[in-house]
């Protein structure tokens, strides 16, 4: 193995992580972490440090396009960010005090159920018009974008703002406590509860994950967990993949995104259930 080959391999794998992550609204940790630990034998501590950088790179790399295309709903993002950040702080405070085994099983089951509910709505291209609640109206949680796949302008209005905020708080606790990305919960809450178009859900999730990750990245740096030889090439690869992913996603159909999301959910759910059962 030469240094050049090592760096190229990291960049290539990370580009795939960035591509998938940016399209699905996830951080890419589900690819970066197993690759670093299982294939390269990197200590988990350094893999997590590289993964947090990957989350920020996925988010920032794709978000400039999504925001310019009006796919990202900034208001929804900022509003839900309240829940995820407070939840993450709560989770970090609870870490070590709460047994995580039951939580893994609980969240594993929750994700399996979400996969089922997504499967039921797999043919739905755009959400049916909803009756917005008082909060969604007051906070103007609505938007409009031009859908390149459908060739039409799509307007939408969110509903269930408070249940979604509460879900985000729970998801934030889970990510702080279990060290899992919360992108998957963000997408589910926006798609399932707030009834936003799937594209808006993944683009807004993509936008949000960067902020949460940036807040915890300082800690990873201070502990020496961000290794330049790993995190540097990972950042470059992910940025590249996310850029391509952001161009690609605008041309995909909402139904495709939703269907592609189901296997990812099942994978994460199975992984969590296994961790919970093994203890």
């Amino acid at each position, binding site marked *: *193995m*030469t*240094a*050049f080959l*090592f*760096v190229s391999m990291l960049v290539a794998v990370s580009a795939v992580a960035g591509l998938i992550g940016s399209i699905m609204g996830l951080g890419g940790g589900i690819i970066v972490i197993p690759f670093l630990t299982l*294939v*390269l*034998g*990197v200590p988990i501590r*350094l893999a997590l440090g590289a993964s947090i*950088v990957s989350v*920020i*790179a996925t*988010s*920032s790399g794709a*978000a*400039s*396009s999504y*925001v*310019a*295309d*009006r796919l990202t709903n*900034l*208001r929804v993002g*900022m509003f839900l960010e*309240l829940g995820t*950040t*407070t939840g993450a*702080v709560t989770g*970090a*405070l609870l870490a070590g005090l709460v047994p995580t085994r039951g939580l893994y099983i609980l969240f594993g089951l929750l994700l399996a159920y979400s996969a089922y509910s997504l499967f039921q709505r797999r043919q739905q291209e755009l959400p049916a018009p909803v009756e917005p609640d008082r909060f969604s109206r*007051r*906070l103007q949680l609505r938007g409009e*974008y*031009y859908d*390149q796949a459908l060739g039409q*302008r799509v307007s939408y209005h969110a509903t269930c703002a408070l249940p979604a905020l509460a879900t985000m708080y729970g998801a934030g606790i889970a990510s702080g406590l279990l060290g899992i990305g919360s992108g998957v919960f963000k997408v589910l809450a926006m798609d399932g509860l707030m009834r936003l178009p799937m594209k808006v859900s993944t683009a807004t999730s993509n936008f949000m994950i*960067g*902020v949460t990750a*940036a*807040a*915890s*990245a*300082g*800690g*990873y*740096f*201070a*502990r*020496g967990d*961000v290794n*330049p*030889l790993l*995190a*540097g090439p990972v*950042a*470059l690869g992910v*940025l590249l993949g996310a850029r391509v992913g952001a161009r690609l996603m*605008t041309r995909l159909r909402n139904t495709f995104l939703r269907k592609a999301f189901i296997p990812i959910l099942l994978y994460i759910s199975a992984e969590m259930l296994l961790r919970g059962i093994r203890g």
Partner: protein
Amino acid sequence: MSAHTHGAAEYRHRPAARRDIEDIISAILRWGVFISAAVVTAGVVLLLATGSTGSAPLVFAPGRLLPDLGRGPTGPAEALRGLVPPQPYSIIALGLMLLILTPITRVAASLAVFLRDRDRAYVLITCLVLVVLAVSFFLGAGAH
């Protein structure tokens, strides 16, 4: 002209005086990514060219995938000290720190725009998010 002939590009290139929050945030993200990617690339190229992290040579043992990873700077001050003479690990770390700053700058810029638009609900929400982010940053930095 019907809506069908409009593209997403229609939202871009608006007069600068009436810039939407979306255009400001998009520009911040684009520049943040560009600058940090350039700095990280410079560090990686220097690492490959010199075959050294800056403090130790990069050695790949035969038959092993992973080299000795060494350790990078743990904070901005240490990274900046590693710039003269330029050390690959310090340059990469500095680029990564710029990447981390990008989303935080973006939240701060949203606050400025909400203030400009006198959108009180979102000024409040954004301030709360910033406070919680600061708390979480110091919790993280203090842990372990």
